[in-house]
């Protein structure tokens, strides 16, 4: 085990997979000469050369499109999109090509394409550079949606992404790049669809991903001081989703809080809540609470930016609501 930064864990994953598989290559804006805006690809150009580490013009639709084409033709592309907001320029290639190809070819064609990008708020970069857009990929069958919250998960999931056969939307968070965490030595792979219990607890189940995981753990500690033990589940991959782990936890706690940085309306949290209320209807002692961003773009002003996304207190408050909710039987009277 070594303690390294999230961005270094990502670099290790790319480096190891490039060394292991000569089909793996990466393209993006400023990722080669400059080593990437978040230094994730630093040193890769020197090590693997200009054929496998390429800077691109500002052409997200083209970048994503050629990545998808390369994958269809048996390549192993990683396309880095600076901000997930910019992936909107390449949505056609993601939605209508990458996600559809396998079905359209009756199952024969596969698209081992990996798009790496980052989202979330941070530092006043405003409305077009702060979005959490996972819901838009989550709703498109055929895509895998990965959102690691720790260096170890980032490394293990990215390595797995480069070995499986379907298009992966790999979403990092601008706040996490410099965060540190323990990462196992040697080969470390995390398969899709296996959630991780980041904290065990019996009183309330909290589900969070990406940058909301550390924040939810903070909330859990605060609750613990009040004698409330929250279980914090990080699905790590939203598609596929580890429903079993979630439902098992709910059966135990009977209370759920889902935390997402994305806006409330139409978020992944809504979908998870819809699953829980259906599969665990009789387990629930309180409505599933969702803590999410306000339904408005992220403003430039830092105080408003903060007000637009979930803070630790919001999470604590939601957990308390689930605990103080009247039980059904009383409600029935």
């Amino acid at each position, binding site marked *: 085990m070594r303690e390294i930064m999230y961005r270094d864990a990502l670099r290790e994953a790319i480096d190891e997979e490039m060394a292991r598989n*000569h*089909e793996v*290559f990466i393209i993006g804006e400023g990722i080669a000469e400059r080593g990437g805006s978040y230094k994730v690809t630093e040193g890769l150009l020197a090590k693997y050369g200009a*054929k*496998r580490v*390429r800077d*691109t*013009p500002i*052409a997200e*639709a*083209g*970048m*994503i*499109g*050629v*990545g*998808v*084409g*390369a*994958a*269809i*033709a*048996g*390549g192993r*592309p990683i396309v880095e999109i600076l901000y997930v907001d910019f992936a909107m320029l390449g949505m*056609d*290639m993601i939605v*209508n*090509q990458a996600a559809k*190809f*396998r*079905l*359209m*070819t*009756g*199952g*024969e*064609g596969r698209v081992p394409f990996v798009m790496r990008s980052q989202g979330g708020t941070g530092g006043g970069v405003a409305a077009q550079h702060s979005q959490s857009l996972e819901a838009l990929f989550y709703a498109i*069958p*055929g895509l895998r949606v990965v959102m690691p919250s720790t260096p170890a998960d980032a490394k293990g999931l990215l390595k797995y992404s480069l070995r499986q056969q379907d298009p992966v939307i790999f979403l990092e968070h601008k706040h996490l790049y410099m965060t540190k965490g323990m990462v196992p030595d040697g080969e470390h792979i995390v398969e899709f669809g296996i959630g991780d219990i980041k904290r065990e607890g019996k009183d309330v189940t909290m589900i969070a991903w990406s940058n909301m995981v550390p924040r939810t753990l903070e909330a859990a500690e605060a609750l613990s001081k009040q004698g409330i033990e929250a279980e914090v589940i990080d699905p790590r991959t939203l598609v596929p989703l580890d429903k079993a782990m979630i439902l098992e936890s709910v059966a135990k706690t009977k209370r759920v809080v889902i935390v997402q940085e994305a806006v409330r309306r139409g978020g992944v949290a809504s979908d998870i809540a819809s699953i829980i209320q259906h599969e665990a209807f009789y387990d629930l002692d309180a409505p599933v609470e969702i803590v999410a961003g306000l339904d408005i773009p992220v403003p430039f002003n830092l105080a408003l930016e903060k007000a637009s996304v979930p803070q630790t207190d919001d999470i604590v408050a939601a957990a308390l609501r689930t605990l103080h909710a009247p039980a059904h039987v009383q409600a029935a009277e």
Partner: protein
Amino acid sequence: MAIESPKVNVPSKELLEKLFFTAYSIRVFETEGIKLYRQGLIRGYFHPYLGQEGIATGACAALSKGDYIASTHRGHGHCIAFGAEIKKMVAELLQKETGYCRGYGGSMHIADISTGNLGANGIVGAGTPLGVGAALAAQVRGSDAVTVTFTTDGATNNGTFLESLNLAAIWNLNFILVIENNQYAVSTPIGDSTRETDLYKRGTAIGVESHLVDGNDPLAVYDLMVEAVKKCRAGQGPILIEARTYRHMGHHVNDPGKYMPEDKLKYYKDRDPVDRARNDFIELGGATLAEIEVIERKIQDEFAAAVEFAKNSAEVSIEEFRQFAEAY
């Protein structure tokens, strides 16, 4: 720029026979396919390649095993010219399990990865980035495979054209973009969609070697493509080729195409690419009418057999589809 017809070297009889065989195969597939469509046996969209056969025919004849193609919504001709099995194509159009895509894809999505056919596409312009991507993967792999994307006049006004051709250029990819300029996007004449109807100039403007060729002359297309493929394998790609042509009917089976001026339609029908291939085979290749007849009969029989095959093929399984969805 004058339309190019290089005719680099005297064509062999084998080549001329191949060109005619391909062109006529496409002609039969489309004419017979339209009948099946009108009988209600084919559903969804069907965009006939009638009148444009010279392009796929000439272009694919210049390719080798290991090369890739990406196609359009009007893609039957490209599949056939690239060597697809007629029976699997017909089965696909008839929604059968034995089709190229198990009946899941249909006319706009026929693909055959195993042979390097990256598929038709329902999104105008999408084949260009996909093709450039295949060329990129080949370059990373150190292969000298060439990728040809067949695209359309309509697609040249779409952003995908600029972005992906520019990427192919800065990376010197083995990529050839063949623009099938049939001068219409559905009913909209090209002159209403852009001021500059010499589409090859858009390649020149971003430093890509660009050519204009008569798309109704299979041999001219072939000759130009042979040069283009050679240059690509020598690392001098990408290359753009605009092939001028015209549809013989409306945009799809149900489009009467009333907006196509009589005289212009006649002008192009008088320059029918299939007739051109047949005449070249006879005049330059010395083929006899008897030989021609044998070939045409063979092709017709193959299509008829393909229809039988498709009709007798198994229906898709809804159960398997549901399982597929579970895993998708």
